[in-house]
């Protein structure tokens, strides 16, 4: 069983499918907010592997002795600005401060790495002040996606992987945010103590697969960068 941060669940399902094709081993994917998953793991959740949206939670689990290995970075996310109102987001920096931008959705900077990155980017371009009045803070990256896709907001900051999850028919415009404007969104994974109980070999196999060239290719396909 793999517990995965909500933003990476789509790619993980692809990885699981690929892994099963190669080895015949089935993987059960459980998604949720990283923080909640971490609390659950500390309280006995039956998960074998944990893929967080950041590095802090895995590190914390490691120091408190809930893991079999040190956290490892499996991918780095990229932040994008997007809209489905048909607006042109190529020059989003000027647009976002304008009148007709509508509300702007970011994930909660306190809990979601993509939210933190978005905040950093806005500060980097010195437009946080003017934008703050329009900011709508969503619970998670998924909720940002909902707001954007349902056009309740004009613009949203989310993960690049969203782009590859959408049906082709969806009206959607997006633009990468320059990675130098925010600190890298490193996503860490750990092998949990629970993995020892059952099928340790298979668990370990999948954990190792996550860092294989084949997996890296799939990660890149969905807009992540890998080491």
């Amino acid at each position, binding site marked *: 069983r793999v517990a995965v941060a909500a933003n990476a669940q789509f790619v993980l399902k692809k990885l699981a499918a690929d892994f099963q094709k190669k080895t015949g081993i089935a993987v059960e994917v459980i998604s949720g*907010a990283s*923080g*909640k998953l971490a*609390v659950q793991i500390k309280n006995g959740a039956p998960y074998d592997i944990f893929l967080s949206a950041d590095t802090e939670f895995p590190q914390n689990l490691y120091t408190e002795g809930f893991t079999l290995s040190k956290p490892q970075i499996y991918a780095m996310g990229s932040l994008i600005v997007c809209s489905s109102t048909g607006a042109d987001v190529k020059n989003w920096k000027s647009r976002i401060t304008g009148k007709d931008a509508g*509300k702007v*959705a970011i994930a*909660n900077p*306190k*809990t979601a790495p993509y939210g933190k990155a978005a905040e950093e980017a806005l500060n980097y371009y010195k437009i946080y002040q003017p934008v703050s009045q329009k900011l*709508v*803070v*969503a*619970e998670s990256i998924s*909720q940002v996606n*909902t*707001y954007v896709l*349902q*056009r*309740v907001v004009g613009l949203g900051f989310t993960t690049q992987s969203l782009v590859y999850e959408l049906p082709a028919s969806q009206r959607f415009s997006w633009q990468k945010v320059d990675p130098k404007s925010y600190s890298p969104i490193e996503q860490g994974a750990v092998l949990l103590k629970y993995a020892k109980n059952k099928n340790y070999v298979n668990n370990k196999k999948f954990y190792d697969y996550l860092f294989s060239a084949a997996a890296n290719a799939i990660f890149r396909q969905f807009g992540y960068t890998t080491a």
Partner: protein
Amino acid sequence: MEWTPIWLSLKLAAITTMILMLIGIPLAYWLSRRSSWLKVVIEAILTMPLVLPPSVLGFYLLLSFSPNSFFGRWLLEYFNLSLVFSFEGLVVASVIYSLPFMVSPVKSALAHLPASLAEASYTMGKSKLHTFYRVQLPNIKSSLWTAIVLTFAHTLGEFGVVLMIGGRLEGSTKVASIAIYDAVDNNQYHEANMYSLILFAITFVIVILVFVFNKNAMRGPLE
């Protein structure tokens, strides 16, 4: 720890409860009168919002309130009112969500009341409205308070809907339940505990006061 979210939560719960008293109690009265198929269906529909997970209900409300929807645009154009990302939106959503907690207990209690009480009042020339507020309602006081307490508490704890259509705006939609949730998510357990304790304490006092008041109201002069 800030006080704004708590204050906001209490305001939301109080306003919602008040609105629900205004619309829920007459609705309960109407539903308690001779029942028809229509009323049974309406009653079932009122219960429906409960069945959905709050955040999903919030999602559907988001769709219907958003300026892209017909209803949302109409509100915006004619009333300059936006129900997404605003306190007003939270109130409307909470009203929908908590409606059955106000209506059902009151309706059931009215159904148990002997018909002759109202009849006696009618022969004294009192209107149905007057009779309802002076005779029927006071005689189901205990159920009425139950409804009010459940509604109030439920609105305070309401979270999923609020999170979806509120957008965490400081001072207008970031209510206490969201602050607690964020604190837990942030590993700020101490802060979460503080918020929880304060909410508990305030509600506990309110509920105790209601029960004590209610108890005295039901007690006769000789006991």
